[in-house]
């Protein structure tokens, strides 16, 4: 489904190839919002695309790239399994000579390439990065700004276990912020902190589209503090604080049916009181115009 508000012919197209958190959840109960894990493609009007995360949804995303693409950029937020498990099935990696740029966080002692090698090597996977026919370039990034084509990219560490990045993408005057795994309320006893002390604030400030973690219900969160995730209601509060225009509830819990996703996100949306925030649950294969 394609929808949105960029009627001037410019702007960004955001396609959701995987919206699920933690574990793929295919089945009859998840056909509406999807069962694939995190993967999003952001494309500008010139056709330049950035891919965010390599969950199981990236298999389809890789097949949607133009056959004559010269360069592919994949931005990884972190290396938890649900964000890299599709990497070995990303078709561009098997295109001889194609430049594939992987951007993501190192650990304190290992480079991004070294960390990815732990997954892309036996016994977990039969093919090593160095054996791939494409030219793979790994870039260690933490907090910073750089340009990829016409996109301005900003990254920063955000509150989630293990080094985890959020991304802010700007192109053609539009801002898309991607915070799929984020627990901004961690350690806060009374609501979210002021913006200066709010994880992810400067990435999401004024975003036209904020893609934000909404994995747990309020009751679930009580027993999962520190696991790195957010509730839909807190995602609404966060979106209000950063003055985002539109919020996509993302990283649906694998145990959640379509009916439940719809219900808890609708309940959270009703708590919105300030401003004109538009909210909706992220649905796999939706294409959103920004």
């Amino acid at each position, binding site marked *: 489904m394609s929808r949105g508000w960029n009627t001037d012919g410019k702007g960004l197209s955001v396609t959701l190839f995987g919206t699920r958190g933690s574990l793929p959840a295919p089945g009859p109960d998840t056909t509406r919002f999807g069962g694939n894990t995190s993967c999003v493609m952001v494309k500008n009007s010139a056709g330049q695309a950035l891919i965010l995360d390599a969950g199981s949804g990236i298999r389809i995303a890789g097949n949607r790239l133009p056959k004559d693409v010269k360069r592919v950029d994949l931005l990884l937020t972190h290396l938890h399994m649900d964000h890299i498990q599709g990497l070995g099935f990303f078709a561009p990696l098997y295109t001889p000579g194609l430049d594939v740029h992987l951007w993501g966080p*190192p650990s304190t002692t290992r480079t991004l390439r070294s960390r990815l090698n732990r997954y892309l090597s036996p016994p977990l996977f039969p093919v090593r990065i160095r054996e791939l026919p494409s030219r793979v370039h790994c870039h260690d990034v933490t*907090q910073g700004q750089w340009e990829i084509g016409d996109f301005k990219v900003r990254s920063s560490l955000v509150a989630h276990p293990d080094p985890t990045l959020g991304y802010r993408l700007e192109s053609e005057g539009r801002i898309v912020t991607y915070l799929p795994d984020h627990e901004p309320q*961690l350690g806060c006893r009374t609501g979210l902190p002021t*913006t*200066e002390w*709010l994880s992810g604030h400067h990435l999401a400030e004024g975003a036209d589209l904020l893609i934000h973690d909404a994995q747990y219900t309020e009751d679930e969160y009580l027993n999962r503090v520190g696991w790195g995730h957010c509730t839909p209601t807190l995602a609404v509060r966060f979106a209000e604080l950063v003055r985002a225009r539109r919020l996509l509830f993302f990283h649906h819990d694998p145990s959640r049916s379509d009916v439940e996703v719809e219900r808890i996100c609708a309940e959270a949306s009703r708590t919105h009181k300030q401003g004109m925030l538009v909210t909706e649950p992220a649905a796999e294969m939706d294409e959103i115009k920004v």
Partner: protein
Amino acid sequence: MSRPLELILARQWAALLSTPVMLFDMEGSLIFFNEAAGLLLGRKYDETGSMVGPEWQAAFPMEDEAGRVIGATDSPVATAIRSGSPVMRTVTVRAMDGVRRKATVTVFPVHGLERTRQGAVCLVHPA
């Protein structure tokens, strides 16, 4: 602009501790102290907010064991930030409520990913 995540998490951690903790950024500004530290310093963080170096050094000067005021560049915080190594020192604080309090401070610099320095954490042990 939000602060680096290392300092955000340090503040959230400190806010839950009964051990007095102060946080400093790389410029030496006192950017947070918890309630326990507030008792030692004689004011609450909610009352003072952040203080740049000259402000906090004037608000609660520190003296060495001989009773001499410790200069800005020689303070445990400045030394830890400059050297990148932990510093432990016993000082007397002229607190903001007028009371002099002796304490041992342990200041350790916060080294983030890729060894980027983000500031310093100061643990205070009342003597």
